[in-house]
C-alpha cells in the first residue's frame, strides 16, 4: 500500500476502531442493564440445606377430629372444617381436621386413638359396635325432611328405572366399609335374589359419595349407590344436578352417621366434647353449620338406634366378633 493510500485509509480505520469500541461498550452496558433490570433480585444460597421436621407434633391443645371420606377429601375439608373449628373454639383448643384416604384408615385411627373424635359412616360404627376401644359420643337428629338411606342413582337420560335394569352394567360403589355406598345396595340385591358380585359387569370403588355421583354424571358408571344425606347436600350445592339424575331404588332408612371417640380419650375432654355437640344447635352459627348437613341437633347416643345397621352388616357377613386391634 502506497503512502498516499495509507494516509487516505488512516481516518477511516480510526473512526472504525472508535465506532466499534463505542458500539461494544454500549451493547455490553445495554445487556447488563437489561439483565440487571429484568433478572434483578436478592441472591440466595440454595446449597445450604436443613432437614425439615414432620411438623405433625401433637400438642395437648389440639382437637384432632376425623371425618370419614363420605365426601371427597377436598369437599370434606371445605364443608366440615367449620364444624371442627367451631367445636375447637367451644373447647378453647386448636382444631385439626383429619382426613384419611378411606373408611378403614379412619376406623383404625379411632381404634388406635390417633384421633380425639370422628364423624363416621354408620357402617363403621356397625363394624366397631362390639369394639371396646371405641365409644359412641353423640348421634345426630336429622331435619324433618332428611333421612339417611341408600339411594341408587342413574343418569336421568338413561333407560334405567329399576335397580334390576342395571344388571350386566357398570356400577359405582363408594368404599367397602360404607353402609350406603357398598353394604346396603348389595343387601338390596340379595333381597331381590341376585348375587351382588355377579350382578354387575363392572364395579368400581370411588372412595366417596360425591365422586360416585360424578362417575354417573360423567358416564363412567351406569349407576351408583350413594348416601341420601350426601345427595341432598350435593343437590343444594348444585341445583342442576337433580335434573341430571334419577333415583331408581332406595333402601330403608337408618340412623345417621354418629360421632365416635376412642374409649381411651380423657373423660374431661370426652365430656366437654359431648357437651359441645349437644349444645351446638343452641347458637345460630352452630345451628346453621348443622343444617348444612341436614342435622337438626346432636343427641345422646342410643346404641339400639344402630342395631338395624349392625344387623345388615352381620347378614352380610362383615362382622367378626372381637375385631382384632391393628
Amino acid at each position, binding site marked *: 500500500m502506497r503512502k498516499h493510500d495509507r494516509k487516505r485509509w488512516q481516518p477511516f480505520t480510526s473512526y472504525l476502531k472508535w465506532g*466499534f469500541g463505542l458500539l461494544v461498550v454500549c451493547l455490553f452496558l*445495554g445487556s447488563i442493564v437489561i439483565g440487571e433490570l429484568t*433478572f434483578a433480585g436478592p*441472591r440466595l444460597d440454595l*446449597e445450604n*440445606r436443613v*432437614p425439615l421436621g414432620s411438623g405433625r407434633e401433637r400438642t395437648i391443645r389440639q382437637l384432632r377430629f376425623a371425618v370419614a371420606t363420605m365426601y371427597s377429601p377436598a369437599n370434606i375439608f371445605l364443608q366440615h372444617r367449620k364444624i371442627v373449628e367451631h367445636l375447637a373454639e367451644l373447647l378453647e383448643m386448636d382444631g385439626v381436621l383429619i382426613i384419611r384416604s378411606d373408611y378403614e384408615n379412619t376406623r383404625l385411627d379411632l381404634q388406635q386413638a390417633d384421633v380425639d373424635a370422628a364423624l363416621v359412616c354408620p357402617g363403621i360404627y356397625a363394624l366397631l359396635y362390639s369394639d371396646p376401644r371405641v365409644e359412641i359420643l353423640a348421634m345426630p337428629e336429622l331435619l324433618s325432611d332428611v333421612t339417611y338411606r341408600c339411594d341408587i342413582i342413574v343418569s336421568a337420560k338413561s333407560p334405567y328405572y329399576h335397580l334390576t335394569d342395571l344388571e350386566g352394567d357398570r356400577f359405582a360403589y363408594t368404599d367397602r366399609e360404607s353402609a350406603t355406598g357398598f353394604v346396603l345396595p348389595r343387601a338390596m340385591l340379595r333381597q331381590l335374589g341376585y348375587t351382588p358380585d355377579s350382578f354387575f359387569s363392572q364395579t368400581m370403588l370411588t372412595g366417596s359419595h360425591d365422586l360416585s355421583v360424578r362417575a354417573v354424571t360423567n358416564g363412567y358408571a351406569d349407576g351408583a349407590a350413594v348416601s341420601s344425606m350426601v345427595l341432598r347436600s350435593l343437590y343444594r350445592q348444585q341445583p342442576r344436578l337433580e335434573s341430571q339424575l334419577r333415583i331408581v331404588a332406595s333402601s330403608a332408612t337408618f340412623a345417621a352417621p354418629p360421632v365416635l371417640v376412642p374409649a381411651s380419650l380423657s373423660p374431661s375432654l370426652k365430656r366437654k366434647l359431648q357437651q359441645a355437640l349437644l349444645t351446638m344447635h343452641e347458637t345460630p352459627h352452630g345451628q346453621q353449620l348443622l343444617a348444612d348437613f341436614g342435622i337438626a341437633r346432636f343427641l345422646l347416643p342410643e346404641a339400639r338406634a344402630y342395631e338395624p345397621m349392625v344387623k345388615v352388616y352381620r347378614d352380610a357377613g362383615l362382622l367378626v366378633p372381637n375385631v382384632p386391634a391393628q
Partner: protein
Amino acid sequence: MKYLRNVTLQTIISWLAIAVVVGFFLSITLSAGWWLARSSREDLVIRARSLANSLAVDAVEPVLLDDAYAAYNVLQRSSLADKEIRYAFIMLQERRIIAHTFDSGFPRELLQYCLTHDEPLMQYRTRDDYILDVAVPVLDGELGHLHLGMSQKRVLHQQRYFSMAMLLVLGTLLAASLLVAQLISWHIGQPLVELATVARRVPGGNLRPSEVPATGTAEIRQLSLAFQQMVTDLRRLKAENLSAQKRMVSAERLATLGEMSAGLAHEILNPLDGIMECCRQLEPHMPAESRQARYVQLIHDGLRRIERVMRQMLVFARAPGKTPDISDCALHDLISDMIELTRPRLERYGIQLDAETSLANRCRCARPLVEQALLNLLLNAADACGESAERRICIWGMVRDEWVDIHVEDSGSGIAEADRERVFRPFFSSKDPGKGTGLGLTVSRDLIEQNGGELVLERSGSRLSGAHFRISLPLSLDTDERSHRS
C-alpha cells in the same frame, strides 16, 4: 457551527454514520432486548403457573390426607414435565412445608425468604442461575401454596444471543456505513480539494483548462466543467485585454495626431487664405488664355482643394461632447461632399465608387457628425476592398417612411457571422494589427445616434458581396407635406 469550520466532510459523514447506526441499533437492541426478556419471562410465568395449578389440583388430596409421600410424588412429576423447573414445594397455610423436591433437606435461605415474602411471583439469583419462584394456591389457598422454581437461564441466554446477533448486525452495518461514508467523502470531498488546489493556480495565469480535474459525482463534474469554462473565458479575456491595451495606445496616438492635424490645418488655412486672396487679386491681371492665367487658375483650384481638405480635417477633429447643431441637410450634398473627399484615396487604391445621389430629399442632422460617420464607413469599405478582385463600393440613398437611409456596401469579404454582434464593440477590429483602432464603427454609431438616427449592419448581398451598413436619419418634411401626412 464555528466548531465545524476545521472539520472535513469525511469526518462529519463518518461520525454521522456512526451516530445514526449506533443510535438506531442501540435503541432497537435495548428496546427489543427488553421486550424479548419480558415476553420470554411472561411465557415462563404463564407456563409455570399452568403447570403449578395442575400440580396444585393433584396435590389437594395428598395434602388433605397429610400424605407427604403422595405430595412428593405429585411434585416430582413437575421435573419430568419441564426441564426448566429447578424445584417444587408445598408450603401449608401454617407455614409448614409438607413436601419438596430438594435433595438433602430444604434450602435455609429460601425458607426464610418465602416466610418473609408471601408473594405469588418472586425472583432471586443463585450462584449459577436466575430463579423465578411462582406460587399458586392449593385449594384456593385454604391449604397453602405450591411453589415452582423456574430457571431463567434460557431467557437470559436468549437475550444474550439476541444482543450478540444485534452486535454482529450492527458491526456489519457500521462497517458498511463507514465504507459508504468514506466513498461519499472521496467522491465529493477529494474532488473539491483537488479543485481548490487547481483554483489557487488561476491568479498565476498558467493554468490550462485541461488541467482542471473533472472527476467525482455529476454535481462535482458540473462544477469542474463550469470551472474549466471559467478558466477558458479568463484566458480569452486576458488576451482581449492585452489586445485592447495595444489598441488604446494606438487610439491615444491617433487622438494626439488628430489634435496635431487640427492645429496643422488651422496653421495651414491662415496663410492659405492669404495665398488664395493673392491668387484672386492676380487673376484679373493675367492675360486671357495666357499660360500665366492658366497657371494661376490651376494654383487657385489646387488651393481651394487644399482649403476644403483642411476644413474637413478641422470638422473631423472637432472635439466630441459638444451638443450637435441639428439642421436640415440635403442628402445629395452630403453624399457628394464625402465622395469628393474620399475619391482621391479610392482612385489611388483603384477602387470604383458607384454613387446614386439623385435624391432631392433632406434630412435632419448635424452635418459634421454624419459626415464623420459616413467618412468612417467609406474608409472602412475602402480597406475592406483592398484584397478583393472587384474593388468596388456602392453608396446610395433612399427614403423609407419618415427616414432617409444611406447605404454603404463594399465588395470585400464581408463580416463573419460570429463577429456581427461584436462589430460595434469598442476596440473590435478585423483589420491586421496596427491598421485599425477598433473605434471607427463605435464612434460612428455614437455620432449617428446623437442625430436621432441609427447605424445598422445589414445582411450582405443586396448589391455587392461585402459588408453592408445603413445610416438612417430622420426625414426633413416641408410644412405642407407634414400637414398633408398628418
